[in-house]
C-alpha cells in the first residue's frame, strides 16, 4: 500500500465498527468455515476492510420472496401508465421526508419537481424519512464517477437486493448460483491504486463466499498470489467494471467462471467480446446507480429494465417526458431504498425508452472511461483520476490531455481548494507532466464532459 495516497478512508481496517456476530447475524458453522478459509488463505490479498451482509432472518425472508416477485417479471407500468404504487410513494415521501414535508403534495407524478444528484446527495440527511429506523442505516461512499463523491445512505437489506436481481438477470443467460458454504459464489474485482479488500459470506446464498479484491499488485504479498488465490477460490461469478475486468483478463487464470458481470461504466462491445472469449462465459453489462441499485442489464442491443418496484421516465432538458424512442435523461422513481426514497431522480445518464416485451433502454449513454498517458508513458484510467480528485471535495471538473501530453484541469470554483493542492494530488498520480489548473464556473454546462484526451 502506498503511504502517500491521499485517500484517508482506505487506512487498513479504519472503517470497521462491528463484531463478526453483527456482520453476519445468520452465520452458520459452514459459513464460519468458509470465512476462516478466505481470511487465512495463504495467497489472500492484504485485507483492509471487514464487511458482512448484516441480514436478519426477517430481511432474508423478504429478499427470498423478492426473488419470486422478480420471477413474475411484472413491471406494472407501460408507456402510458404509471405503476400503481406511485401515488402511495408520493404520499409517503411528502409526509415523512424532511426535504419534501413542508411542500404541498402534487396530485400527479408529473407535477413532482425532479431532483438532481448534487442537489440530493449534498443534503442526503434531509432525504432520510422520519420513520426510517436509524439503527439500520449504512453509508456507501460513491466513487464520484458521475459528479462529486458522495455518501449514500441505505440499509443492509437494500444493499443485498442486488443478489436476487443478479440471480434474475443470470437466469436469463441460463446461469444459476450453486451457493452453499463450500462454494465461493462471487468475487468483486477492482483495479485501482487502492480499494477495499475484504472476505465475506452471504446468508442469501446459504453461506457461500464473497470476496472483494483489488488487482493492483500493491494489495498483495506477491503479484502471482492473485492467480493462486482466484484459481483456488474458483468463484462462480466475477463482478467488476470494464477496467478491472480487463485487468483480470490479463492474468493467467485457469478457472472459468459461469458468468462475468460488468458495471460502473460503459462496457463497449469490443471489450465485452474480448472478455467473453477470454472467460468463455456470458459477460453481462449491468446498469445501475448506488442510490437506487440495479436498473437494467444488457440484452442484445438494448438494456432491459429490471422488474423491480422502480419506475423510469426519460425527460428532456425542460423536464418533459420524451416519447418512446426519443433519448433523454434517465429519471428514476423508486421507494425501495428505505433510507433514500427517490421521486423523479435525474441520474445524469441518457437513453431512450422503448418496449420489447417490457421496458428497455435504448442507446444507454453511461460513463465512458477515458485513458490518459502519465509521465513515462504509463496508462492512467479516468476512474483513477476520479478517485484521487474526489476526496478534495471538488464539485465538478474537466480534465483534458493535449496531443503533446500536457494536462489542463478546470475545476468548478465553488468550494474548491487552492490550485496547488489540486495540482499536487494530480501529479502524485500522473507524474511530472506539464499541468495547468484553473478555477472556473463549470455550472454553465448542464453535463460537463469530465474527461477528454487528444491522445485516444
Amino acid at each position, binding site marked *: 500500500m502506498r503511504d502517500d495516497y491521499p485517500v484517508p478512508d482506505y487506512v487498513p481496517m479504519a472503517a470497521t465498527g462491528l463484531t463478526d456476530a453483527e456482520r453476519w447475524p445468520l452465520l452458520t458453522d459452514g459459513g464460519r468455515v468458509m470465512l476462516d478459509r478466505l481470511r487465512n488463505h495463504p495467497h489472500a490479498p492484504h485485507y483492509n476492510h471487514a464487511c458482512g451482509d448484516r441480514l436478519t432472518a426477517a430481511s432474508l425472508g423478504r429478499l427470498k420472496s423478492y426473488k419470486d416477485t422478480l420471477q413474475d417479471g411484472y413491471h406494472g407500468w407501460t408507456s402510458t401508465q404509471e405503476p400503481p404504487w406511485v401515488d402511495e410513494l408520493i404520499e409517503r415521501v411528502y409526509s415523512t421526508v424532511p426535504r419534501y414535508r413542508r411542500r404541498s403534495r402534487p396530485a400527479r407524478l408529473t407535477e413532482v419537481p425532479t431532483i438532481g444528484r448534487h442537489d440530493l446527495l449534498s443534503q442526503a440527511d434531509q432525504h432520510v424519512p422520519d420513520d426510517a429506523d436509524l439503527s439500520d442505516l449504512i453509508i456507501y461512499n460513491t466513487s464520484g464517477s458521475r459528479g462529486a463523491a458522495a455518501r449514500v445512505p441505505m440499509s443492509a437489506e437494500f*444493499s443485498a437486493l442486488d443478489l436476487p436481481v443478479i440471480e434474475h438477470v443470470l437466469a436469463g443467460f441460463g446461469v444459476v448460483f450453486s451457493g452453499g458454504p463450500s462454494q465461493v459464489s462471487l468475487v468483486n474485482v477492482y483495479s485501482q491504486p487502492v480499494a477495499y479488500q475484504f472476505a465475506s459470506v452471504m446468508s442469501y446464498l446459504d453461506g457461500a463466499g464473497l470476496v472483494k479484491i483489488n488487482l493492483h499488485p500493491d494489495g498483495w504479498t506477491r503479484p502471482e498470489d492473485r492467480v493462486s488465490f482466484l484459481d483456488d477460490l474458483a468463484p462462480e461469478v466475477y463482478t467488476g467494471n470494464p477496467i478491472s475486468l480487463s485487468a483480470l483478463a490479463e492474468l493467467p487464470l485457469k478457472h472459468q467462471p459461469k458468468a462475468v458481470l460488468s458495471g460502473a461504466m460503459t462496457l463497449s462491445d469490443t471489450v465485452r467480446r474480448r472478455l467473453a472469449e477470454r472467460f468463455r462465459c456470458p459477460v453481462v453489462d449491468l446498469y445501475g446507480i*448506488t442510490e437506487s441499485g440495479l436498473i437494467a442489464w444488457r440484452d442484445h442491443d438494448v438494456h432491459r429494465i429490471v422488474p423491480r418496484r422502480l419506475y423510469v421516465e426519460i425527460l428532456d432538458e425542460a423536464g418533459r417526458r420524451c416519447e418512446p424512442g426519443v433519448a433523454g435523461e434517465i429519471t428514476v422513481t423508486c421507494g425501495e431504498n428505505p433510507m433514500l426514497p427517490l421521486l423523479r431522480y435525474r441520474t445524469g445518464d441518457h437513453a431512450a425508452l422503448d418496449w420489447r416485451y417490457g421496458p428497455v433502454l435504448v442507446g444507454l449513454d453511461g460513463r465512458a472511461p477515458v485513458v490518459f498517458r502519465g509521465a513515462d508513458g504509463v496508462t492512467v484510467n479516468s476512474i483513477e483520476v476520479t478517485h484521487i480528485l474526489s476526496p478534495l471535495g471538488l464539485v465538478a471538473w474537466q480534465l483534458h490531455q493535449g496531443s503533446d501530453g500536457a494536462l489542463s484541469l478546470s475545476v468548478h470554483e465553488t468550494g474548491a481548494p487552492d490550485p496547488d493542492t489540486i495540482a499536487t494530488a494530480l501529479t502524485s498520480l500522473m507524474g511530472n507532466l506539464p499541468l495547468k489548473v484553473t478555477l472556473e464556473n463549470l455550472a454553465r454546462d448542464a453535463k460537463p464532459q469530465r474527461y477528454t484526451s487528444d491522445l485516444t
Partner: protein
Amino acid sequence: MISLSRLTRRLAETPADFLSPETSVPAVVSDLLMTIGGPGLDERSAMPFESSERNWLRIVLVSCWLLADEELIARAEPKRVLHYLTEVLLPLADLVDAPLFVSDPDRREELARLALRSLDLLPEGESRAQAADRLATVDTVRRYEVLQAAKAAEERAAAVRKAMEEQRAKEAAARYSQV
C-alpha cells in the same frame, strides 16, 4: 360582522375583578351562559371551572368579560361558548400569562379573533379566508406547534447526521455489483 377594534378595546379595559384570584369562576361562567339564554352551570358542569389551573381560570374570566359584549351576547350559543372556554383556551393557558390578554395588543387581538372563530362570526370587513389568515399571524398555539415541529425536525436531522457518521454505518455492508 363584529367590530374587532371594539372587542380589543373592551379587553384593554377589562376590570381588575376579572383578573382577581378572589373571583368565583363558576359563578361568572354560569351568569354568562344564562345571559345568552342557556342554562347555567350545574354541579357537574361547574366542576372543570373549579380546577387548579389558575392561569386558565384567569383567561376564562377575561374571556367572560369579552363575551359579555352586547353584540356577542346577542349571537353567542351556549354550546360554542363552553367549547371556547375549555377546548380553545386550555392549550393557550400553557403558553400565555392571563394579564397579557389585557395588556398586550397582539394577545388582545388573538383572544378576540379566537372568540369570533369559536362563535362562527367574522370580524367586520373580513372574509372567512382573511380572518383565518390574520388569526394565523397572532395564533400562539399554532406558532408553538410550528416551533415544536421545527424542533423535532432539527433533533431528527441531528440524529440522522450522527447515524451517518457512526462507525457502524461506515463499515456498511457488502455490495455485490458495481454501479
